[in-house]
Each structure stands twice: as C-alpha cells, then as structure tokens.
C-alpha cells in the first residue's frame, strides 16, 4: 500500500483529492438531500460579548480576555527572549530578530528621521507587537463561547470559538484615537498651534483657493481616524466572517448539509491566507501609518 502511494505523482494525488471532494459532495447530497432554512441560528451571536463577571464598566468578557492575553504575550515573549539572548541564535531568536529588524528598519526608520525614530521606536514597536498578537490569537480556537457549552467528564466547558478582539470596533478605535492625539500633540508642541495649522496646507497654495483647500485638509486629518479604525476592524471581521460562513455557517443557515463538506477547502485556504498574510500585514500597516502620521506632523509639507 505504501509502495503504491509513493509511486503516485503529484498530479495523480491532486486528482484523487478532487475525486474524494466531489464524491463526498455527491454522496452527502444523495444521503441527506436539501434541508430547510434555519432561522434560529443568528450569525451575530458568534461575535456577541457576554459579561462573565458583573463589575459594571470593568466587567470581563471574552474581548477583555483576548486583550489581556495579547498584552501578556507582547510583554512576556519579548522579556523571555531578551533574557536568554545567545551569541549563536536558535530558531526562535532568529524569528524574533527578524521581527525586531522589521519594526526598527521598515516601520520606524523607513518613515521617520533618525532623531525621531529613537524616541518613537518603543511606542511603535509596542503598537505593532500588540496588534500582531491580537490578530494571531484571533485565529486560534479558544474555549470562549460561553453561550454554547459542551460536556467533558461532567465539566461544562465553553465551546471553542474563533474570536479576535480587533474584530470589535472599539479596540482599533481606541488605538486610532491614541495615535490621533499623539500626532496632533507632537505637531502642536513642535510647531506651535499656528505653525501646525499652517503645515496642514500643502506648499504652493496661495490666495482664495485656500478657502477650498483648508477645510478639505482638516477633514482629511479627521478621516485618518476613521480609515485607521475601519481598515483594521473590517479586515479582521470580514476574515472571521468568511471563515465562519465557509466552514459551516452557510450549511447551517441554508440547511444544505453538503455545503459544509464542499466549502471546507475554501475555508482552509482563507484561514491560511488570513493567518499568514492579513494578520501580520494589518498590524504592519497600522504601525507604519502611525509612524507616517507622527513624522508628517512635525514637517511642513
């Protein structure tokens, strides 16, 4: 049997997989048929925040747990690695050093003059790492869905669910507000209130056209707040929604059992795409844009 498997070419294995997939779909259609629409399943309940403790504003729900986990991982991994730095780096240290050089060279130094980069590197690196961990743990199934429990040796354990704190609009909004306040305060302290207001106007614009340009520039400064927030939040939320729909959500809602099997390869591909590219890319973009905004607020453009 194993000899036979070894003799198969990649093309044949691919065809066998396609055959299994197609055959499974047809068998499931034949065996289970077409069901009815399921109106009980509410897709928004997957992202619902249920308070586990009742402490008013400080109540703990799963978004809070994810935030604490991300903060702990951000601090913990960096301290742990820095304690056991070696001359001959092992695999983990190499990975962390790659991440460090990405934060130092691409995010900070690539967008800022060196004197500023020294000041702002800790903030931007912390921002990047926190968002990166938040996004990454968002793709690990953790037992956080307390609405649906399952029974394991008598203990009621919450169902495993994919959830990301960054898929909740308040988390990216708070981070974007922090960045917004920082670049405005830095701009005003470095250039003075009047100088900062003047620096919003593009150079070479004079005369009555200013009446048109100046409000536009002010609006575009505030738009940064929205675009920073919505970019991160919508990317992560849409990724989670597509994974949810493809990995069984559609099958449950439409009552078509075979869809669960037929769309599973799509779910796996989207999951790998999100985990491999989008999670890192969105953290990178957020930190890079924060660096560009902070650097742009002290220079006249």
């Amino acid at each position: 049997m194993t000899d036979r498997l070894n003799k198969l070419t990649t093309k044949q294995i691919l065809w066998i997989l396609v055959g299994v997939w197609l055959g499974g779909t047809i068998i499931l259609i034949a065996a289970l048929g077409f069901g009815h629409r399921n109106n009980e399943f509410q897709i928004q309940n997957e992202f619902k925040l249920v308070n586990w403790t009742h402490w008013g504003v400080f109540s703990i729900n799963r978004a809070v747990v994810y935030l604490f986990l991300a903060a702990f991982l951000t601090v913990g991994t960096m301290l742990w690695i820095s304690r056991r730095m070696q001359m001959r780096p092992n695999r983990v240290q190499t990975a962390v050093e790659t991440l460090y050089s990405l934060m130092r060279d691409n995010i900070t130094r690539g967008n800022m003059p060196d004197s500023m980069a020294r000041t702002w590197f800790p903030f931007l690196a912390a921002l990047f790492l926190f968002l990166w961990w938040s996004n990454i743990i968002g793709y690990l199934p953790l037992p956080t869905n307390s609405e649906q429990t399952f029974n394991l040796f008598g203990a009621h354990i919450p169902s495993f669910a994919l959830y990301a704190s960054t898929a909740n609009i308040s988390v990216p909004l708070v981070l974007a507000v922090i960045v917004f306040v920082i670049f405005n305060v830095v701009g005003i302290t470095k250039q003075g209130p009047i100088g900062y207001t003047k620096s919003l106007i593009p150079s070479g614009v004079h005369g009555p056209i200013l009446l048109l340009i100046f409000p536009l520039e002010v609006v575009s400064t505030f738009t940064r707040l929205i675009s920073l927030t919505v970019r991160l939040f919508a990317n992560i939320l849409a990724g989670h929604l597509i994974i949810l729909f493809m990995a069984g959500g559609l099958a449950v809602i439409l009552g078509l059992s075979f869809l669960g099997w037929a769309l599973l390869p799509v779910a796996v591909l989207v999951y790998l795409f999100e985990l491999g590219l989008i999670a890192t890319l969105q953290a990178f973009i957020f930190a890079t844009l924060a660096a560009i905004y902070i650097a742009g607020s002290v220079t006249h453009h």
Partner: protein
Amino acid sequence: MLTHVLSLGAASGLTKGFGIAIGGGLGAVGAGVGIGIIFGKVIEAVTRQPEMRDEITSIQWLGFALTEAVFFYGLVAGLLSYVLT
C-alpha cells in the same frame, strides 16, 4: 438602471441582503482593479530595476493594504445598511 435593480430587489424580498450585496460587490470591483494595477506595476518595476526589489516590496504591501481596505469600506457600509433597515 440602478433604481430598476433596487425596485426589482425590493419586489423579490431581498431588501435586507441587498445592501451587503451592492456594497460588497461594487467594493470588490474597485479593489480588484486597484490590486491588479498595484501588482502589475510592481512586476514592471522589478523587471526594470531588480536591484530595487526590497524597497519596492515594502511599498507594495502598503499599497496593497490601503487598496484592499477600500473593499471593506464597501462591505461595512453594506453591513450598516443591513443592520439599520
């Protein structure tokens, strides 16, 4: 044309899902064209000047993420219309 499509959607009882369909669909058109242009230009640039590859790659991801976000603006607007109607 658009009003015709909208009334058709309303007549067939698709009003709730219609916002998402239009927002997501039209958003995907724009972002698709944009991402295609970005990666096409990157290929052109790298074939002309292979020594600039690293610099171009970092700008490429910035452009990709900024363009891709446009799709999500459409999707979020559609989701808002779904929630609000």
